[in-house]
């Protein structure tokens, strides 16, 4: 049976959702971001904004310098996530083998179902039409013998496109394909290869697999195979056990205020712990990631004896690690993650540990019933209490989340 893999990629997803919600934004350059009064970046840009050079990840001042007439819209991640759920649910009617790749992308293995929908082109068009009819959103579809080529196919025809790559087309396609078009070759690797005079997949093929294996090891082999359009990776229907659980937060302003940084680390630790509790995971490794205001990024991790999904415990371990950094600049972003997850750990041995476990289970049940953050550690309030004043740089009228008031200043443990 011929292997047929389909890649669906929503077009300018967040911006398209906002343009769907508000018809007055249609046809206009739209930038979806966080609160523009803080240090936020472009989360998504409409094609009208992209045409003027705006890209995801760009700072807002830079984006506005390229596109001064852009409309800034605060992101609504819950809406996007729920809409994604709707879209992915629609895809299961075309194949049971659906892999959710990101919030706006999915792979389908339609090898055994493509004939039921009249062939590849017909299937691709039906998927586009179904998503458009249900949500009003357009997508691009790529169909190819493997995931890599299906994703490349999409990148060649975005937005609102459909491209099929047949087996016989692969050699010619890959020969002249720019290396930047290959998933997995990021800007840094592309720049390095460009320094060596390599700008197309054909040039990679000409140098041979051995050349890249010698220089990059296993990654070199994967790079070479990708340049040849080879990819054996399956469409993974059931999410595998996560290797790690983490949360990161770009601070609204660069800071070296240790009290504020501690409060953020505590919140991130509790967020990680909460997700670990959902799957009853214990962890062994804590990783702390710090990005400074010059975008230098440090990551450090440490292995401990297995620890329970307790935010306070994770915070204590993370704070230890954070102290090992020698920071001479302000902090821009913080990230905490826990890895070496396992369920095969005996439960708490000591009464106080058992008591804390019962407490968190009760909190999780309450939040599950009444809504997230119905009950939360009082220490979360500290993040707002010690937050330095935010410089007012824009006269925007909206603020999606109102800081809650507090009557007593909490202190960190």
């Amino acid at each position, binding site marked *: 049976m011929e292997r047929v893999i389909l890649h669906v990629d929503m077009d300018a997803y967040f911006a398209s959702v906002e343009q769907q919600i508000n018809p007055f934004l249609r046809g206009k350059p739209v930038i979806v971001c966080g609160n523009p009064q803080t240090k936020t970046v472009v989360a998504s840009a409409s094609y009208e904004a992209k045409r003027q050079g705006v890209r995801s990840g760009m700072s807002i001042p830079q984006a506005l310098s390229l596109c001064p007439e852009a409309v800034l819209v605060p992101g609504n991640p819950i*809406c996007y996530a729920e809409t994604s759920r709707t879209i992915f649910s629609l895809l299961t009617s075309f194949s049971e083998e659906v892999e959710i790749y990101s919030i706006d992308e999915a792979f389908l293995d339609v090898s055994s179902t493509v004939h039921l929908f009249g062939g590849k082109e017909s299937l691709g068009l039906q998927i586009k039409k179904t998503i458009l009819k249900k*949500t009003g959103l357009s997508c691009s579809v790529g169909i190819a013998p493997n995931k890599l080529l299906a994703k490349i196919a999409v990148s060649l025809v975005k937005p609102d496109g459909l491209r099929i790559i047949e087996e016989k087309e692969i050699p010619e396609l890959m020969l002249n394909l720019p290396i930047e078009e290959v998933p997995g070759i990021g800007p840094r690797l592309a720049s390095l290869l460009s320094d060596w005079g390599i700008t197309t997949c054909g040039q990679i093929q000409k140098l041979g697999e051995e050349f890249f294996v010698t220089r990059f090891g296993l990654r070199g082999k994967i790079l070479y195979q990708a340049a040849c359009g080879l990819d054996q990776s399956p469409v993974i229907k059931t999410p595998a056990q996560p290797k790690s659980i983490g949360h990161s937060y770009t601070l609204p302003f660069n800071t070296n205020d240790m009290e504020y940084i501690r409060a953020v680390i505590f919140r991130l630790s509790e967020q990680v712990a909460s997700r670990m509790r959902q799957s009853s995971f214990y962890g062994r490794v804590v990783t702390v990631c710090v990005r400074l205001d010059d975008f230098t990024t440090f990551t450090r991790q440490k292995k401990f004896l297995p620890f329970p999904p307790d935010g306070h415990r994770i915070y204590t371990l993370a704070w230890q690690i954070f102290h090992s950094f020698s920071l001479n600049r302000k902090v821009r972003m913080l990230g905490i993650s826990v890895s070496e997850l396992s369920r095969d750990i005996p439960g708490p041995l000591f009464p106080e540990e058992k008591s804390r476990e019962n407490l968190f289970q009760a909190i999780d049940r309450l939040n599950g019933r009444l809504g997230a953050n119905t009950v939360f550690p009082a220490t979360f309030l500290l993040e707002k209490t010690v937050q330095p004043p935010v410089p007012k740089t824009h006269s925007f009228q909206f603020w999606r989340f109102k800081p809650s008031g507090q009557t007593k200043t909490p202190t960190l443990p």
Partner: protein
Amino acid sequence: MITEIGEPVKVAAIFTPDKVKICWFIWKGRRIQVEKTTFFWKTKEGEKTIHHFALSTGQEVFEISFCPEQLSWLLEKIHLE
């Protein structure tokens, strides 16, 4: 410009087997006729499912939400040009 409101409203809606069509709603004594539902999504608040509607009058866009457990409608936001 988006303005957060968060106020209860009275809504006239037609429920059909697969969708809800909102005809008009009353806010601050003003009856607001809905031209079109531009977007729909659901969220969860604990065990409750909240249904969200983006509504266009032709001049403004309103976001309202419906909680089936409480049978209550809330005007969440107004998008102004």
